[in-house]
């Protein structure tokens, strides 16, 4: 599609339950990024993929968080045993690959986000 799609729009989980969020990148985009926005503060990077391969996972919490991008399927971000502090809006973004020598940045196109509320 022409836009990044994220589902569901809202997700409510009890503490300790699993949460799974989905992202369909723009067709033809090979990079996918996940960001977490807590309380309207800055976006915290979680993980990025180049096609189905993890590109950068330096922001990913070591425990409870996992993510995948499999061929012909939406990408997913899963949180096992959610905690209150996981309540946030999770944004997915996608971009086209560019060469660094192009001296331009591959702007990331963001989806509308999934609001996760952990009670």
């Amino acid at each position, binding site marked *: 599609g022409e836009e*990044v799609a994220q589902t569901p729009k809202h997700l409510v989980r009890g503490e300790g339950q699993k949460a799974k969020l989905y992202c369909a990148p723009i067709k033809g985009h090979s*990079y996918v*990024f996940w*960001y977490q926005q807590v309380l*309207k*503060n*800055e*976006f915290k*990077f979680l993980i*990025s993929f*180049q096609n189905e391969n993890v*590109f*950068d996972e*330096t*922001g990913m919490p070591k425990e409870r968080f996992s993510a995948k991008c499999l061929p012909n399927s939406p990408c997913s971000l899963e949180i096992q045993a959610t905690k209150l502090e996981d309540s946030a809006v999770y*944004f997915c*973004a996608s*971009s086209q*690959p*560019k*060469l*660094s020598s*192009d*001296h*331009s*940045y*591959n*702007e*990331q*196109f*963001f*989806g*509308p*986000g999934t609001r996760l509320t952990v009670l």
Partner: protein
Amino acid sequence: DQQVKQNSPSLSVQEGRISILNCDYTNSMFDYFLWYKKYPAEGPTFLISISSIKDKNEDGRFTVFLNKSAKHLSLHIVPSQPGDSAVYFCAAGTGANSKLTFGKGITLSVRP
């Protein structure tokens, strides 16, 4: 350690005037800088970017200036319009396909 800083939480300007949004950064490795605009309940929308090899980039009413020695960039919107009222995020990256590091955003209000 906040590597991208937007020190003013809000800005109010009159329609037709210039809006100047500021951003500072601390990481010398950043080589790309971007501005995003965000409305409530929506994802950020890309506005304009600048590479560290340039000091100015212009796109219509939007101009971004980069001062590498001061580690400072600014977004100029002229003339400002009521539809520009939104939260503006400054972001920076290292490498063309890297993650973005965001500031906390500034809320711009353009008064009719």
